[in-house]
């Protein structure tokens, strides 16, 4: 049996009998979805629009995996390929090691929470949730108890008999979630499910989603273009741009160790410094910055960066010091922006490049620096990260 049942022997998802080639999965057997070199071209294969370009990713079981990227970068397209609404022009998608190319959406143990929710307007909340279960042919008693459980899970019991246009946007979102979770799919795909909600509800739903994922043990593939949402919720993030996955990693890796300029720029604020790099180890470079200092910078593959290179330094990975003391970089303070928890110091380095330092605020008087003053910057150890352009 291809997909094990998780509801006491009831079909949790359609059976997928047939020929399956068990692929040699070298990454271990805890991979839920393997996207292997997938390309999607809309229109003619040679002249059409390349929405995805040789995308590869391994999404682990019970992982909260986020696709993060700007509008139009292909996030929805990748989800639709996994759900089965579109077919890859090239490449393969494996679910639990089995190629699902031949399976239509209604045979894939994958459910989607659509960006528009797509609730059935002619059915009640409860009937929406039971729809998938009825289609799977579950017995009525099992359906009833599952619907009860799902309604409780998303706290919608009092509204079970309402039509879907008689509930609020946030409630609709919860129903959409319950409807997709009810059949207990192997993988849940969520396409910007929180984007229509106001700030407060959004925060609540973020916590709710994490709780649901923990309780159900289902693999979540979550799409967003909100970097903060991605950082706070994900186990791993794939940053996408123009149909490609640029970097996959934990929120910490993505934030602290971006490998590409786009990633560093898209997530949080970053200073970019140019310099001349020499290989100083396997993953270590010695970079003589144009702005003066020589710093150690890390990179996944140091050899790649020898010669001209760009390094990224997060504003909070540097300290502002008086201009007359020892410093890595020096320049003029141009602006001071107070943010409550911290203060941003905008300066122009001696070679004319802008640089921002973020300093935690402490109780007491101000920072002691004033605009126009000559100041210095000390970089933290490990602050510099070499980037691919």
């Amino acid at each position: 049996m291809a997909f094990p049942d998780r509801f006491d022997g009831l079909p949790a998802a359609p059976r997928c009998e047939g020929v399956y080639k068990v692929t040699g999965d070298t990454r271990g057997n805890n991979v839920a979805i393997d996207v292997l070199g997938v390309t999607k071209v809309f229109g003619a294969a040679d002249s059409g629009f390349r929405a995805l370009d040789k995308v590869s990713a391994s999404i682990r079981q019970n992982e909260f995996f986020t696709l993060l990227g700007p509008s139009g970068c292909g996030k929805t397209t990748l989800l639709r390929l996994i759900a089965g609404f579109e077919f890859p022009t090239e490449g393969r998608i494996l679910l639990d090691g089995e190629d699902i190319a031949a399976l239509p959406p209604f045979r894939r143990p994958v459910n989607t929470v659509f960006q528009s929710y797509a609730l059935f307007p002619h059915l009640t909340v409860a009937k929406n949730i039971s729809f998938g279960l009825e289609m799977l042919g579950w017995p009525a008693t099992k359906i009833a108890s599952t619907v009860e459980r799902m309604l409780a899970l998303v706290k919608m019991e009092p509204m079970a008999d309402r039509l879907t246009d008689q509930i609020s946007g946030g409630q609709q979102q919860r129903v959409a979630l319950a409807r997709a979770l009810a059949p207990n799919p192997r993988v849940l795909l969520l396409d910007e499910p929180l984007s229509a909600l106001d700030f407060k509800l959004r925060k609540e739903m973020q916590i709710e989603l994490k709780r649901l994922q923990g309780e159900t043990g289902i693999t979540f593939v979550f799409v967003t273009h909100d970097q903060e949402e991605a950082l706070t919720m994900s186990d791993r993030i794939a940053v996408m741009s123009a149909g490609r996955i640029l970097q996959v990693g934990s929120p910490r890796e993505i934030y602290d160790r971006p490998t590409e300029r786009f990633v560093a720029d898209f997530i949080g604020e970053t200073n970019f410094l140019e310099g001349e790099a020499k290989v100083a180890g396997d993953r270590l470079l010695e970079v003589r910055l144009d702005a003066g200092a020589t710093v150690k910078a890390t990179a996944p593959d140091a050899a790649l960066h020898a010669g001209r290179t760009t390094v990224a330094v997060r504003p909070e990975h540097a300290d502002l010091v008086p201009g007359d003391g020892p410093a890595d970089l020096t320049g003029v303070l141009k602006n001071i922006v107070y943010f409550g928890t911290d203060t941003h110091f905008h300066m122009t380095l001696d070679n004319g490049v802008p640089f921002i330092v973020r300093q935690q605020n402490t109780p007491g008087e101000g920072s002691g620096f004033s605009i126009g003053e000559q100041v210095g910057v000390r970089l933290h150890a490990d602050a510099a990260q070499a980037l691919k352009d």
Partner: protein
Amino acid sequence: MQPHEVEQAAIRRGTMRRWLLSAPALVIIFLASFGPLFVMLAFSVLEKGDYGGVKPWTFSFDGWANVFFQHDIFTGELGFADAHLSIFWRSVRLSIITTALTLVLGFPTAYFIATRPRKTREIWVFLVTIPFWTNLLIRTFAMQEVIRNEGVINTVAMRLGMISEPIQIMYTDWAVLFGMTYVYLPLMVLPLYASMEKLDFRLVEAAYDLYANRFKVLRRIILPLTKPGIIAGSILVFIPSLGAYVTPRVLGGGKNMMLGNLIGLQFGKGNNWPLGAAISITLMVVVMVALLVYVRATARAGGDDRGR
């Protein structure tokens, strides 16, 4: 005056003005719809004139009696008007089948159009409406050209050796059915398309995603959501089918009469205007009752869908 009296006076004035403003519309509605109805009703209870028309101020219920009963020509016994009843039954039967056929043909057509890109949709809708540009009589004769013994179908089929003798289609119920289906198909397609165009096809995807195969998506999602179009289309096809005149006349010939022809006959060669008027009113009542029952039934079915 007390404040509330002032208010009431103002409301009275407003009501008055509303009535005056809508008076022209009301007059037209009364004259145009109730006027002819009243004339029909009056004619149905007058005695028939010797050479058509009615004798004014001579009341008689013969017209109504003749709808359902007739004197046997030979014995003079009073019996059911079998001919009328069989024509009535044939009309209802052919109209139901026509409605079903146009639905079966129109549904995929409307679905096809609704799933085209927006630009091309308009072209398809335009194509569907083209037959309306031609007079019904001419379209019906064109149909005759297709199905008659020396017509397109028979000629081609014989050339291809599929048949050796022409198939007699003209002057059968089949011919009437073909003709009516052809003529009324656009009336089914257009309301169906209107409701399908409003259908959110993301719902179809959502249903696919939730393990519904194509057939179940059709039954559980598309049909319920396009029900208003199905009802509207069925009404638009069924009612004119029931009273159809030209198509059964041309394609069905003299012996395959439908109600429309029976009524026409009474006002023409039959010289029995009261009977014609009575049958017309009967037809109208039947249609209204059928509509009521249908709408009630579908409304209840819709209510069931919403329950748990």
